[in-house]
């Protein structure tokens, strides 16, 4: 008998259909300034930036097994680096966003060096301690307003790349055009983030990441460099989180240490989104951020009760559906929108339809 041929496939019929649907959705989102009012643009901006933060935390915790509770350090430092570059060096705010990412990586290097020596809960606490130290240090930086914070200078706001063009294009005021600019940047960042993480998970490195998460010892025994994997995703997550932080405060146009390094806004909500949606799946944060947005817009007026309700909901989901809402959906339907599983077909394998 001749040697049977095997093929490896990742996609499913549902995922290919979804791909087309996604493309249509993206076109609609790019065209949002045509059909959405300013309030909706701001809401979409909020959803997209929270999605980016959640995707990076999911990469760390869900794929890398690195449960950091200090990602607000990178949001805050990214935002402050952007403000600093604008105020001190007169850099245009749009390219200064990238400097936010660079600053976050520069902080992530010593953070990883310190926190990777800690395991489990101590790792989490270590990252949080470093985030709070970063907040305290930035509060001493007088050029950007010290403990009370500052606003983006008027000239910088006026000169922001692209604002004039957008204002002319849609015939809108500068403030609304700035929102559109921030929204488009957030959309680009979200697409790059989801596409980048998806590509990573489908690559050889994605397999290594899963192996390290499932069993570090065995991963080492088959030649995977666990340390390098952890370092790279920690730095990548810091870079993306820093850029996202800079973008959030570019849109905000005002910054203060407590807001920029907020553990509730950039950590508790983000963890909520990932846990509710489903950890360790790309679809998870997408479902989670939509649920979170609905809750936020209907319940946030209730203040402390709202936070307690979020906490209770998160605990309930963790107990009933540990793999989140997306876990329930995909278990019931077998649906995978971003398939990463490599399936072997042909040869001596019983026939299966891809």
């Amino acid at each position: 008998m001749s040697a049977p041929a095997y093929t490896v496939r990742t996609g499913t019929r549902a995922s290919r259909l979804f791909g087309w649907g996604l493309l249509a959705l993206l076109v609609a989102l790019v065209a949002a300034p045509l059909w959405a009012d300013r309030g909706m643009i701001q809401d979409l901006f909020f959803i997209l930036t929270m999605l980016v933060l959640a995707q990076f935390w999911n990469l760390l915790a869900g794929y890398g097994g690195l449960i950091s509770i200090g990602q607000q350090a990178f949001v805050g430092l990214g935002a402050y680096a952007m403000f600093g570059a604008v105020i001190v060096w007169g850099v245009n705010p749009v390219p200064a966003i990238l400097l936010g990412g660079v600053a976050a990586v520069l902080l992530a290097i010593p953070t990883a060096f310190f926190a990777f020596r800690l395991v489990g809960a101590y790792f989490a606490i270590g990252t949080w301690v470093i985030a709070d130290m970063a907040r305290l240090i930035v509060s001493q930086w007088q050029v950007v307003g010290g403990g009370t914070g500052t606003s983006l200078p008027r000239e910088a706001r006026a000169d922001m790349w692209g604002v004039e063009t957008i204002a002319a294009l849609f015939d809108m005021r500068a403030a609304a055009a700035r929102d559109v600019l921030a929204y488009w940047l957030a959309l680009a960042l979200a697409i790059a983030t989801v596409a980048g993480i998806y590509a990573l998970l489908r690559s050889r490195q994605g397999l290594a990441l899963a192996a390290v998460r499932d069993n570090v010892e065995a991963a080492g025994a088959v030649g995977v460099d666990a340390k390098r994997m952890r370092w790279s995703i920690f730095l990548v997550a810091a870079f993306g989180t820093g850029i996202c932080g800079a973008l959030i405060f570019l849109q905000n146009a005002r910054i203060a240490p407590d807001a920029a390094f907020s553990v509730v806004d950039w950590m508790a909500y983000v963890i909520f989104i990932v846990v509710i949606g489903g950890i360790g799946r790309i679809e998870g944060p997408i479902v989670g951020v939509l649920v979170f947005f609905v809750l936020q817009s209907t319940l946030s007026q209730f203040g402390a009760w709202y936070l307690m309700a979020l906490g209770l909901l998160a605990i309930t989901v963790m107990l009933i559906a540990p793999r989140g809402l997306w876990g329930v959906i995909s278990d019931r339907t077998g649906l995978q929108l971003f398939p990463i599983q490599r399936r072997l077909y042909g040869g001596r394998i019983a026939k299966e339809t891809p």
Partner: protein
Amino acid sequence: MSILALQGVSKRYGALTVTDDVSFAVPEGQALGIIGPNGAGKSTLFNLITGNVPVDAGSIMFDGQDVTRTPARQRCLAGIGRSFQIPQPFSALTVFENLCVAAAFGRDLPERAVAEDCATVLERTGLIGRANAPAGGLSLLERKRLELARALATHPRLLLLDEIAGGLTDGECASLIDTILEIKAAGTTIVWIEHVLHALTAVVDRLLVLDFGRIIGIGDPDEIMQSPEVREIYLGIEA
């Protein structure tokens, strides 16, 4: 030439000496069996050879290189493959993906280049029907096979097997022996820890007996099994 050589290797856990001044060598292409009572330090010896656990004293040479302080990952790349006594699958990955990780990283090849080879290993180890099943859902027997398959996927020059025959039916055991003989015939050096003595003696050229971390006998399997010291230790297991 010996592919593996241990010289005066010792390991302590607190007051307990688990590996006590162990020295032996395995010539390339040979198979060495390791036996000894529970807790004798057999699995620990593997952990020292693979680098999963650091030695306290002594040296380990692999293929003429001193690997005593080399990280586990590099030893794998150099050609040391192992199975774990308690299976350690990557549970969220499928059986096929478990092998892909081992083949792609253990040999430093792109994923595309290893798929066909992984399928072949799955056929040889009887796991091909389970290729797309999540490893976390396998039975104990299948997990043990996966341990062997994953180690084979790295194409090791030295294969360390830790109790993979326990719990098999006679038929399954015979086919396992065939598989291991095939691997040996292909030139792979094998060190095999096993309590199922007849499986071991069907494959190995020499037998090493470990007790309380010390070597109490090494040599021809028949002679070893005749020695009074070994018979005393094994009286309860296989009289």
